[in-house]
């Protein structure tokens, strides 16, 4: 008996020892020795880490007592796991957030530090940072500026004597010309990002208002109303006439991008964020942005859609708020923002930035045009957002616009009832 007890004790010790060895290996995560303060910068732009690292190096040189530890998640993961990681304040002293549902939830949870009146705000274009304000206070500053509009291949358009159409008939005619010449008019990633991106420009003139989806969410308007049924009907028209590539619902973002990059498709229903990626893969591409005008030319109120996103903020639970703010101020310097923009190919929301690349200037041309803040992001309930984009998929899959709108409205009605 006794030997057995000893053996068991030994066993427990082994387990503990194993755990001990493990923790020894895992140690050393927080080396805040020698008086330095480490702040964490959490965001989802994995493709921008090299540029950010350079900016961080410069920042650390100027502020030798601060160390910035950058952590990234992919954008899918960011929308889902970031909030849990942010709540304890150990990660993301400075963090980025998406406008819409995520911003609302984080604001409700009180994770933002009020930035109202900070001098850094003066560097930004006031119109473009509204997405980060709520109840009259500025909680976050959107850093990136994206135009959620189809990209088109200028060379192909020129070849067939086309210019960006001014009305719906013109748009259909242009598509037909392209199709007759064996070019896919629109590469559409129906399987993932397509509906969410393309719906914005499709709906902007059918209901030219900033708050139509807010009304839908509160029950004052319905998806079965004319504006959305019309939008769905127009989606169906494009699909039935073969203006998307075949089997568009099975196509994902990369494949749709590939069709455009190879010059097999004349338009790509995504957004300006993809311009520089495309250029990297095919430097010969001549790209521009255009929006389908779904009404007659004289009724068109908006020329395009923009989103200000990558909203930077200081975590209210940060243990080093001063240092975090300093880093945010550094990022808000025009020269740093310009460096970020030019190296990553993303437009920024700051004033008077000089862009060097062709792709950035393509988007910059739209700064003075009449654009609407992305309607999809005004839907703050994620289940509603999904119901809306899914109704587009339903129509492309063969449902009638009326039926699809009704099905989606049923889901939204349940959300209102909750």
């Amino acid at each position, binding site marked *: 008996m006794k030997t057995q007890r000893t053996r068991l004790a030994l066993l427990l010790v082994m387990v503990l020892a194993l755990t001990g060895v493990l923790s020894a290996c895992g140690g050393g995560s927080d080396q805040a020795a020698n008086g330095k303060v480490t702040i964490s910068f959490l965001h989802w732009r*994995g493709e921008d880490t090299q540029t950010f690292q350079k900016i961080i190096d410069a920042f650390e040189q100027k502020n030798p007592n601060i160390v910035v530890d950058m952590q990234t998640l992919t954008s899918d993961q960011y929308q889902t796991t970031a909030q849990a990681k942010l709540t*304890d304040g150990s990660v993301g002293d400075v963090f980025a957030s998406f406008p819409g549902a995520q911003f609302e939830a984080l604001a409700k949870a009180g994770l933002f530090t009020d930035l109202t009146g900070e001098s850094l705000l003066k560097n930004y274009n006031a119109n473009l940072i509204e997405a980060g304000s709520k109840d009259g206070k500025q909680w976050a500053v959107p850093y990136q500026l994206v135009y959620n509009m189809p990209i088109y291949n200028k060379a192909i358009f020129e070849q067939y004597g086309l210019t960006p159409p001014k009305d719906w008939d013109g748009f259909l005619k242009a598509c037909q010309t392209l199709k007759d010449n064996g070019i896919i008019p629109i590469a559409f990633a129906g399987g993932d990002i397509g509906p969410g991106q393309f719906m914005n420009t499709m709906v902007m003139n059918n209901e030219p208002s900033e708050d139509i989806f807010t009304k839908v969410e509160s029950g004052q308007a319905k998806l079965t109303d004319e504006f959305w049924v019309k939008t769905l009907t127009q989606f169906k028209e494009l699909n039935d006439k073969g203006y998307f590539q075949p089997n568009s619902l099975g196509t994902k973002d990369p494949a749709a991008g590939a069709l455009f990059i190879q010059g097999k498709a004349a338009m790509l229903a995504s957004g300006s964020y993809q311009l520089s990626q495309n250029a990297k893969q095919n430097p010969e591409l001549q790209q521009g942005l255009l929006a389908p005008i779904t009404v007659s030319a004289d009724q068109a109120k908006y020329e395009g859609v923009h989103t200000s996103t990558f909203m930077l903020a200081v975590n209210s639970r940060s243990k080093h708020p001063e240092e975090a703010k300093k880093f945010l101020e550094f990022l808000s310097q025009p020269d740093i923002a310009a460096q970020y923009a030019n190296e990553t190919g993303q437009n920024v929301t700051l004033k008077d930035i000089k862009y060097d690349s062709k792709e950035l200037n393509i988007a910059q041309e739209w700064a003075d045009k009449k654009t609407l803040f992305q309607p999809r992001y005004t839907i703050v309930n994620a289940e509603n957002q999904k119901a809306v984009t899914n109704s587009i998929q339903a129509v492309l899959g063969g449902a009638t616009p009326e039926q699809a709108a009704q099905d989606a409205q049923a889901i939204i009605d349940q959300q209102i009832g909750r």
Partner: protein
Amino acid sequence: MKWVGRIIMILYGLLVAAPLYFVVVSSFKTSQSFYANPLGWPDTWSLQNFITIFDAQPMLQYFWNSARVTLFTVAIVLFLGSLISYAIVRLGGRLGKFAFAYFVAGLIIPSQVIMLPLYSLVRQLGWSDSLTALTVVTAAGLLPLTVFTLTGFMEMLSKEMMEAGSMDGAGEWKIYWRLVLPLSGPSLSATAAFLFVMVWNDLLIPLMLLNSTEKLTLPLALMQFRGEYVTDYTMLLTGVVITALPMVILFVFLQRFFVTGLTAGSVKG
């Protein structure tokens, strides 16, 4: 009859091999040649994708992270799991059944349910962003499956033999360590292989528990590549190949282990 078997064997073999061929071949193509000719043999075998990935990513660090977590987790789970299974089989009766049910109930709990509470628990314990925490948490989550499998196997060992052992005056530990464990060799190695794969490939728990780039495991790294190489198919497929490689090598090595472990003689033991 024989040729029917042959045909099935070869057809299914093709079904498994074709996608794998496609992935491996694509990883050696440049983006251009991939789009020009997705199915065919590459005109030139280019290592550029591999070089680019190793340049741009701390791949070795990711490998090491995955290896460490996997090895320790499997060791802990097998050890604790076999102890539990042994006790369950020995106890038998109502108590054994109850203990078995308690563990196996865990099989039906989806990880989505426990993710958030688990995360806040880990945080309260101060274990955020630690590979050790990941190891311990993963081990806890895999105990149900391990107990389920090992108990099933151990029940097949004859009870009389264990009885005889204890008649001879051998203590429980001795029966477990000297008799049951060696006889369970095949089932332990099969379970180990199972667990290895599961831990190595796990996505959800590491996703929740790890933050820093230098601590990512391979599947997380792969998800990150998906974000970084959005329109670059060949780079993504290269990522798939590289992350699978250690498992493949291990599998070739374990394979013998596996099949000899499962031959008639040893199971009948």
